[in-house]
Structure formats: structure tokens, C-alpha cells
């Protein structure tokens, strides 16, 4: 049982859903990321998705791309990201899941990545450029390390394939709301709720929804049909004000925490 499995068991027992913000590690620097993590945890967020900045993110829209570029331009390195995770591990309750390109995992070495991530308390990984067809070896090693490998299902995934992906997933299923890249949307796709209802009948794993989710209204619509929600660009856009508008860490933290509280209220209030 990983800490993610424990979390969803507890949430289920209390009739609650997970709220999972995304932040980019090192935007604008790792000290700031550590403060944001503590702030989100204090607000009551259940998990956090920690984006490992990558030079060529294909699935990301302009907001997250720009945050990766800022982090990399600031000299953010993987070893320093792990050190930052280690430094906050004792102070936060919420599990950390890394969103990381397979380019980065492969370069470090699969075993080395898993060992280092586990050692600093990281609970799992989402690898957006490693579809299930390429994941067998990595998935087996994740299992051996009790490290959750969260796989993605999208609106373009045929249903038989979705079932196969669900069988290969640990921790929770990441359901991508739209065929597209990350970024805030005003409207959710019309068939999203039906797709989630169908998926619910196919698996016992928790299902979390991400991509495009950015408002309490979205949360209201989705909470009856999923186990959690992931919000990225709406958080990263607020953090970006530190770099782009010279906002102080306190201002950014207040803004991000306020938004997280609003979402938490909409989800579980």
C-alpha cells in the first residue's frame, strides 16, 4: 500500500474527494516551491503533482511551458528538486507525485530514479510521454518499489484500451478531460461526465480528472463522477506572478492558498 492508496481509502471513508494542485518545481526557484508546498498542505490539499521541468513538453500549454522554461533558466536540476522534496517531507502530510518526462527518467536511469524519488518521500509518478505500450518494464519496477505509476486515459482512448490501461495503473487513474494540451478552459467537454460514469463501471481504482479544470463550477459538475480533481495552469498562472509581475512570496502564497481553499470548498464543502 502506497501513501496514495491510504489517502483514497481515508477520503472514501469520509465521503470526500481529492484536490490535487500542480506546481512546477523551481518556478521561480526551489526555495519558493518549498514554501508553496507547505502552504498548499496547510490549506488541506490532499496530494500535489510536482512538475519536473522539461525542455520539450509536448502535452503542455503555454502557461506550464513558460513555467518550465523559467525553472530551467533558473538552473533547476533534478538532484536539487529531490533535495527540496526531502527538506519538506517531514513538514507536509500530502503525498507528492512527480509529473516527469520519460526523457528525464531514462537519462537518470529507471532504478536510480525510483530509488532517489522513494528516498525523499515521493509517492508516485505520472509519465505523460510513456503510454501503456511502452511502460511494462517501468511499471514492474514501480510495483517492486511500491511506487505508484499513474497512467492516463483520454477522450481519444478506445474503450478496450482504457480497460487495459486501468489494469496496468496503480494509485489512481488520471482521466484527461479533453483531447488537447494543458490549460484553463471555460467549458468542460459535453461528454466528459458520461465518459467518467462509464470508466467508473470498469475499475475500482480512484479516478482523478485533469486538464482544463480551473473553477469551482467545474468542481461542482465533476464531484459526483470522480474521486479527485487536478488543477495545474490555474495554479501555475498565479505562481507566475512572482516572476512576471514581481509579486512577493507572501502575495503569491496568499493568492494560491485562497484559490486552493475555494476549490477545496467546492469539492468537499
Amino acid at each position, binding site marked *: 500500500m502506497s501513501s496514495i492508496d491510504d489517502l483514497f481509502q481515508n477520503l472514501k471513508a469520509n465521503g470526500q474527494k481529492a484536490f490535487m494542485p500542480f506546481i512546477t518545481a523551481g518556478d521561480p526557484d526551489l526555495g519558493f516551491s518549498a514554501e508553496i508546498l507547505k502552504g498548499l498542505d496547510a490549506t488541506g490539499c490532499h496530494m500535489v503533482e510536482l512538475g519536473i521541468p*522539461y*525542455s*520539450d*513538453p*509536448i*502535452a*503542455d*500549454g503555454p502557461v506550464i*511551458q513558460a513555467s518550465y*522554461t523559467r525553472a*530551467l533558466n533558473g538552473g533547476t*536540476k*533534478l538532484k536539487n528538486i529531490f533535495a527540496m522534496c526531502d527538506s519538506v517531507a517531514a513538514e507536509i502530510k500530502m503525498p507528492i507525485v512527480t509529473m516527469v*518526462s*520519460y*526523457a*528525464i*527518467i*531514462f*537519462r*537518470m536511469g529507471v532504478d536510480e530514479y525510483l530509488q532517489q524519488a522513494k528516498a525523499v518521500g515521493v509517492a508516485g509518478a505520472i509519465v*505523460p*510521454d*510513456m*503510454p*501503456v*505500450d*511502452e511502460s511494462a518494464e517501468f511499471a514492474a519496477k514501480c510495483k517492486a518499489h511500491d511506487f505508484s505509476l499513474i*497512467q*492516463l*486515459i*483520454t*477522450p*481519444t*482512448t*478506445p474503450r478496450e*484500451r482504457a480497460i487495459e*490501461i486501468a489494469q496496468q495503473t496503480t494509485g489512481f487513474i488520471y482521466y*484527461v478531460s*479533453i*483531447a*488537447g*494540451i494543458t490549460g484553463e478552459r471555460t467549458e468542460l467537454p459535453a461528454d466528459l461526465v458520461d465518459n467518467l460514469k462509464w470508466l467508473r463501471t470498469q475499475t475500482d481504482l480512484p479516478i482523478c480528472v485533469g486538464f482544463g479544470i480551473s473553477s469551482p463550477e467545474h468542481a461542482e459538475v465533476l464531484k459526483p463522477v470522480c474521486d479527485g480533481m487536478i488543477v495545474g495552469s490555474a495554479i501555475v498562472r498565479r505562481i507566475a506572478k512572482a516572476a512576471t509581475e514581481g509579486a512577493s512570496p507572501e502575495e503569491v502564497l496568499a493568492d494560491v492558498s485562497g484559490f486552493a481553499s475555494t476549490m477545496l470548498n467546492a469539492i468537499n464543502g
Partner: protein
Amino acid sequence: MPKFLSQPSPDASLPDDKGRFGEFGGRFVPETLVAALDQLEAEYLQAQQDPNFQQELDVLLRDFVGRPSPLYFAKRLTEKVGGAQIWFKREDVNHTGAHKINSTLGQALLTMRMGKKRVIAETGAGQHGVATATACAHFGLPCVVYMGEEDVRRQQPNVQSMLMLGAEICPVTTGSRTLRDAVNQAMRDWMSSVSDTHYILGSVVGPHPFPLIVRDFQAVIGRETIQQSQERFDRLPDAVVACVGGGSNAAGMFFPFVAETDVPLIGVEAGGENDSRGRHASSLTFGKPGVLHGSFSYVLQDEDGQTEDVHSASAGLDYPGVGPEHSHWKSTGRVEYRSCRDDEALATFDLVARTEGILPALESSHAIAKGMEVAKERGKDEIVVVCLSGRGDKDAAEIQRLRDEANG
């Protein structure tokens, strides 16, 4: 059928059903794109078996592109070098001036077979962008081309051609503002448009089945070269040379020769200014296996897996990765890869212009430079074929700028 056409290639069955050339290749893409790649693979395999598809493509290649392209003896260049005979496979005389059209017409036909209504493409030097815009204009398909802002600047003639052909150009302002970022942006477009759009990828890179499809459409270069060699020399050449950025002209030239193990194959990468990080684009010479743009292949990355900046005077070779089949050929030793510096390519451009009356593309000038090196190592009765992948008119302004810069 001559002996060398009947032997099965040991590598002809590659890629395998996972899209792997040995350990290289595969499909490292977001789940959103997997269904479209499956659809493309299925459609392509069907088209391969469809005589009507092959015939339609053959007629286009003959009447629209002007194939077969000539195999040309570079007599004065040969005399100047003083070694083996140097012959050019003249992809530069194709319609649109490069080999890229071989693949864009095939992929445009696939687009229509799949019932897709819109085409996107990336381009570096602009040759693939022009070839895609041309194929789309020919068939009446709307076309959007992603091009790095830096490449828009240094390849203006091609930008103007694309606009006149009715394509929309999207300058890419992220990252290094070159080919690699254009690929990223095209992939992102495709993430959102995949249901009605085909991505005409320009090289033998990217996720399976692109390296397979682009190689097969370009293999007409090598097949013709084999046939022309047989007609002219009654034998195969003694060496074959092609430049490698992503590697599509080289893959198309080499693939039919792979089984002919007596014929040395030499791929030429962009050596840029020098061997230090960021100053060249020689992924096979200086890189390591890793993941970029959906495929496992040699790549120039730092120790964290971040793609490194690359440099080449030629926009078409300015790419930090390479097609997975080239990585396989490197690891099996079937192809030898060399690296050619900017200054050597520029000097070769001048030499070929004045001795042969041909302006070769800067990309192709890299291949010719190393072809001359290979010819020098060999006797006068031997034959070295160089793939002259494109014409150099597009580079004239940039070459003049580099000269002015060098002269202060």
C-alpha cells in the same frame, strides 16, 4: 532481376510491430495521440497493399515531381579532388527543389484516405514546409506550417513560397526558435486537432509509424540509384554518402542498399563550429541514446535529460536528435557516421557552384564535402554517389550574411 535487387535485406522487416529498430524507435507520446498513430499505421499498411494507391503516387512522382531524378557525373569536381568518380543523385531538381516532396505527396494521399481535412507540418530549412504546402495546394487541403522564428528569418525565400501556396505560417517563439521547437508546437496542435488533422512529419523521426512511413516514401531515392547504377556501371557504387539531420534523405538513399553489405554507406552530420556542447548538431557522433519527440534514439541531452541547444549553419540539420533507424544502423555498424563543420560545408558550396554550375543546399553541401573526402581515399575507377538532397537558392542570402559577418 539483378542479383542485388532480389536479395532480401536483413533489416527489411524492421521496424518490428512495436515500431522498434533493434532497441531504437517506439512510441513515447501522450496517450491522446496513440489512437491517431494506430490509425495512421493501419491506413499505411492497407495503402501499401493497394495497387491504386501505389499507382497514383507513381504517376505523381513522375509527372508532378519529375522523377526519376538524374544520376549526374560531377566531372570537374572529380578532377579537382583527384580520386574516385563523384556522382550526384539529383534530388535538387525535383519539383520544389528537394527530396521532401517524395514523402509529402505520399502522406497527403494518406491524409485523404483517412478522411482527414486539415494538414499541419513543422519545418526547419523550409524545404519540408514548401513541399507540404505544395502537396496541400495540389489536393486542396488547408495547411498550417510551424517554423521557428530564427528559421523564418534565415529562410525567407521558402517562407514566401509557402505563403503563396496558400499555407498559413506559425512562427514559433519558444525555446531555441528552431526546428526542435517547431516539432513541439506541431505536436501540441495535433493534440487538440487529432480527430480531423494529419501531421505530415518531415523526417524519419518521431513516434512509430513516422520513421517507417517517411523512410518508405523516400526509399525511391535509393531504388532509383540502384537501377541507374546498374544501367550506367553494370554494378553498384563503391560508396554512398548522404547528409543526416533527422535523416530522411539518407534513410531513403540507404535503406535499399542496407542488404548490399559490400557497399559502404556514410552518413554526414552537422559538425557546426566545433565539437563543444551546443556548437554542433552531431547527435550520433556526440550524443547518447535517449528520448526526444516520441522516439528512443541518439539525442543531444544534458545529464538531466534536457535537450541541449545545437548549432549548424544549415537550418535543415540544426536538430538535436536523429531518426531511430540511423541509431540502429550506427549500433550495427552498417552505416558509418561522420561529422562536417560549417566552414567545410560553406567552402564546398562555393566549390560546387563554380566547378559544376550547381548551387547545392547547405545541408547537401555537408554530404558533398565528405563525399569528396571518401573519393580522395579511393581509386579513379571507383564510384562514389552523393545524395544531393536539395538546391541551395534558399541559402544564398544566409551565406552572404555569414560571409559579411566573417569579413567584419
